Structures are given as structure tokens and as C-alpha cells.
């Protein structure tokens, strides 16, 4: 019996430290955590606020390094945004952390009045982007980009690769506007940083002809995969554009790329209303461009809790979906 007890303890130890850590079984690389700590070392004004999601937002790492500059706000997002504004108005630079879904859904009024309107030096970090969580409809952010796009003064970033994380945060820090960064945890620490990206400008990852795929965040890899499949199979090079900055938008740079193509596909981990697809259709319509646009993404529906691979397949946020559209267009191209 004593042996059995011992086995249980061992079994539990292997699984993680239950008493202190709830969500992290193995060491994680803390790509975001390390980045913020590095910045906090350089700038003593930076503080971190977190609405009871320490581990999912890598704030355990921040708390460990700067316990006095970490504020556990409780499960209270609206209050957090107000507090963030107050601190920013008093000289601090505030990083406020929660899940994407709880930014615009729980605290849009507070963000509008206390952060966007007065241009408070607040950077809002939303983790669990789009439908990429098994936690279901309550935790799936499908309209955050739409909400923040229509809020004056806000910047919106969605880095797709770990090498873009630091540059994006620096853009947010250097901007006179508050920012919303839509974050997916990265699983590998960067050794290099992407120095090519510029605020407001799209990043051309592949240059091709006839058809361009615009993607942001998690869908960029999907777009690259589809483009390489199509190149292999049909010997046709497509353009792939990473829209890591969803606001501000340098319309001229976008229009230049769009003009070189007959057809545009947008693919986003977000509702097709109000997100990346809408940004492109705005530009195409207001600039009078000729390209035809197909929007992939969540087709104005709520999703459900399931694994991300399953959901991306079901809601056609996939390279298969891009290839299907390509095949339908092939005759016209």
C-alpha cells in the first residue's frame, strides 16, 4: 500500500507541480515573457497587469522577474482597463493581459473612453486569437479586430512569427497611439529579429502572379503552405502577403500589391465581417481597383469548443480551402 501511495505521488510529480502551476506541465520557452522582461529591464516605466491569466499569458515569467511591477487584477477586465489608463496617465507604460475574447467583449467601453480616446500609453495583449482554442464560444475571439478597427486611435498588430514579436512591441511602444496585440503563444525562442517590417505596411513573403493570398497571424503559415502546394502541382507562383499590422493601414502599399493581381484571397482566423477581408474590400472599393476578392475565415457564425486542427478544417481556414478556390479560378486566370 505504501508503495502504491509512493507511485501516485511520483505520477503526480511527473505531471507538474499542482500546488503552484495550473496550466503549464513542461517548461515553456516564454517567448513573449522573455521579450517583455527584456524591455522592462530597459525601461522602468513598464508595468504588467493581468486579469487572472498568469500562465496562459506568460506573466508568471514576468512576475518572477519583476514581482513589484506585476499586478494581479483578478477576474475583472473592465476594471483592469480603467486602472491601466490611470497608471498610464501617471507616467507608466502599461501592458494589460487577458484573452482576446475578453478585451472587446468585456471592456470595449472602458478601452474606448479611458484608453483610445485619451491615447493612454497602454498596450493590450489578447491571447487565444480567433477560434484557436478548445474552450469554446466564450473564449473564441471572432470580432476583436472588427471592434478595434472601428475604434479611433487604436493600433492593431498580429505577429505571425516569433521574429516579429519584438519589432511589433517596439512599434507599439514608439507609437503615440494605444495598441492591441493579438497573440498566439510562440513555441520557439527567436535568435533573430525581423527588421524588414514597417508599421502600416503589408509584408510580401512571396511574390507571384495572378493571385495573391493575404493572411494574418496563424493563417500566414496556411497561406504559405497552400502557395507552395500550388507551385509544386501547377508550377504557378502565387503571392503571399502577411498583414501583421491591421491598423494603421497604408492603403497605397496595399493597392500597389492588389493592382498586380487579378484575384485576391484573404484568409483570417476571425469573422470575415470586419477583419482582414473587410480591410481589403474597403481598399479595393474606395480605390476603384479591379481585383476580385474571396474571403476565407469564420463565415459570420459562432464556432464551438474543439481542437484547433478540427475547427480550422471545419470552418475552412485551411490550405485545402485555398487550393479549392484556386482550382475554381484556374480557368479564369
Amino acid at each position, binding site marked *: 500500500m505504501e508503495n*502504491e*501511495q509512493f507511485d*501516485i*505521488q511520483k*505520477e*503526480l510529480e511527473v*505531471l*507538474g507541480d*499542482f*500546488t*503552484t*502551476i*495550473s*496550466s503549464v*506541465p513542461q517548461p515553456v520557452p516564454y517567448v513573449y515573457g522573455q521579450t517583455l522582461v527584456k524591455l522592462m529591464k530597459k525601461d522602468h516605466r513598464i508595468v504588467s497587469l493581468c486579469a*487572472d*491569466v*498568469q*500562465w*496562459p499569458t506568460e506573466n508568471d515569467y514576468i512576475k518572477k522577474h519583476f514581482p513589484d511591477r506585476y499586478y*494581479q*487584477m*483578478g*477576474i*475583472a477586465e*473592465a*476594471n483592469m482597463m480603467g486602472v491601466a489608463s490611470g497608471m498610464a496617465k501617471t507616467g507608466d507604460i502599461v501592458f494589460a493581459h487577458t484573452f482576446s*475574447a*475578453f478585451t472587446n*467583449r*468585456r471592456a470595449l467601453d472602458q478601452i474606448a473612453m479611458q484608453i483610445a480616446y485619451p491615447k493612454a500609453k497602454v498596450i493590450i495583449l489578447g491571447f487565444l486569437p480567433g477560434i484557436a482554442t*478548445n*474552450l*469554446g*464560444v*466564450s*473564449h473564441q475571439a471572432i470580432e476583436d479586430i472588427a471592434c478595434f478597427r472601428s475604434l479611433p486611435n487604436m493600433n492593431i498588430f498580429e505577429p505571425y512569427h516569433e521574429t516579429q514579436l519584438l519589432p511589433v512591441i517596439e512599434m507599439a511602444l514608439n507609437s503615440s497611439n494605444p495598441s492591441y496585440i493579438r497573440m498566439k503563444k510562440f513555441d520557439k525562442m527567436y535568435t533573430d529579429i525581423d527588421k524588414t517590417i514597417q508599421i502600416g505596411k503589408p509584408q510580401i513573403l512571396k511574390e507571384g502572379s495572378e493571385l495573391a493570398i493575404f493572411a494574418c497571424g496563424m493563417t500566414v503559415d496556411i497561406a504559405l503552405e497552400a502557395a507552395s502546394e500550388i507551385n509544386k502541382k501547377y508550377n504557378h507562383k502565387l503571392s503571399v502577403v502577411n498583414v501583421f499590422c491591421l491598423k494603421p493601414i497604408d492603403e497605397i502599399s496595399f493597392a500597389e500589391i492588389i493592382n498586380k493581381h487579378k484575384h485576391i484571397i484573404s484568409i483570417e482566423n476571425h469573422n470575415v465581417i470586419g477583419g482582414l477581408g473587410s480591410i481589403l474590400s474597403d481598399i479595393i472599393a474606395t480605390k476603384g481597383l479591379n481585383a476580385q476578392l474571396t474571403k476565407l475565415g469564420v463565415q459570420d457564425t459562432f464556432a*464551438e*469548443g*474543439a*481542437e484547433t486542427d*478540427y475547427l480550422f478544417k471545419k470552418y475552412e481556414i485551411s490550405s485545402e480551402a485555398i487550393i479549392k478556390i484556386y482550382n475554381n479560378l484556374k480557368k479564369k486566370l
Partner: protein
Amino acid sequence: MNKPNQVSIDYLKEQAKKLRIHTCELVSQRGRGYVQQGLGASDIFSALFFSEMNIDPKFPDWENRDRLIVSTAHNSAVYHAALHERGYFDKKTLDTYCKDGSKLEINITERLGKPVEATCGSLGQGLSVAVGICLSAIRNNKPFNTYVVLGDGELQEGQVWEAAIYASNMKISNLCMIIDFNELQVEGKSENAIEHFNLFERWNSHNWNTIEIDGNNMNEIIDAFETFKKEDQRPTVIIAKTLPGKGVSFLEGIYSHQMFFSRKASQYAVEELMNGK
């Protein structure tokens, strides 16, 4: 009418044990989940489903059913287990819990249909919906009661207090809120995150019929529900102190929100539950 007749405390304890066993098995199938909260709340869910609530599994949308909103929607293993044991669906359906495509999601959802009355999971919203149901029931002379389970962590959301003030102003005595006071939130034990000061006095001062109990003591749970039914002026809140991992010696008192829980660990837990009283 559709309420089990005067069931014994022993029977309810036996049902709670079944819920605990299901909870362990369901969470371990997935490898991770809300096992601690489920074990802690099994006694409350047993009392609600097998004694207190006037419900009929054959007619989940019967208009005079007592309503239950689980604002702590992540406490889904024990809730779905209770639905199964009460006869809402079979074991095969229960075993789809958290699988791709299943309506038994990790956060309880209305995709499942009734008796799910609201999709919560975004914390702090359940009480407001419950207040609305109570107001409409009074307005339309509906005889049923509404129960809502909140976690103590949720009380940090401001909306809860908006609903609290409103509910007592409207004198909705058909409302019974159970605070599953397990002191457990994502960042661990709530005293290390955000502490609750004088919870009893706070609810009492909002003019709620405030009852404090050991939420793992079946007699106290049943007595609290009796006190609720005698109240005819104020909404009732039962502050039920529960222990995360209750019933399994090596899990009791571990404050882990979404715990990793292997099949092997579950086997030991189930074995202990089976052999226990």
C-alpha cells in the same frame, strides 16, 4: 411532481460518489481539465439534481422545470455527469465529452439544448440571466425556482454586484444562488490572487438571505435549500465552502485550475472512491 420523493442523505451521498467517479474518468480521458472543481462541487450537484430541483429528464424543456444556470461553465465534467446520472442522456453520449464535434464541450453550452439555460464560461454573467428568468417567472406567475452556481472567483467581476443589488431591490425570492466557494481560480488559491473580505456580510448588506455552509456536507446543503424555500422576500445566497479534490485523499486541497490528470491517476482516484464510504 417530477421531484424524487424524499430521498435519503445516504442516497445523495451515493449519487455524489458516482459524480466524482465520472468526473475523474471524464477529465482523465482528456488528460487535463477541471477535476478539482468537479470533485469539490459533486455534493452540490448531487443535491440539486437528485433532490432539490423539480425537473423531468424526459421533458428537458418542460416549461415549469426549475432552472439551473452553471455560471462556472468550465465545471462541465461533473455537470454532464449529473445530467447522465439523472437520465438526460446515455453513457455513450457522456463519453463524447470534449471530443471534436461533441455537444458536451469543456465549457457547458446551449448547443447541448435544454436543460442548459445559458452559455456562460465568460465569467460573471450567469447571475444576471438568472435574475431575468426570475423576473419573468414572477410576471407570468410561473411556479418554478431558479438556481445559479457561481464560483467565488467570479465575484471579482463587477457585473455580479450589479445583479446583486438589482435582485434584492426586485425582491425575487424565487432565486437561489450557490457560491461554490472553492477559493480556486486560474492563478491558484484566491487568497494569493484576490481575497474575498467578509463575503457573508457583503451579501447580507445587499439584503440577500445569506446562508453559510460546508458545501461538502449533504445535511447542510439540504437544510440550506429548505431555508431558501421558506424565504418569501429576498433572493437567497448559499455560500458553500467546498474543497478542491474532495473525496480523493491525494487530490484534496490542491488548488489547480485546469489540472493535468492522467488515466493512471484517475484509476487510483476511482479505486479510492469505490472503496470509500
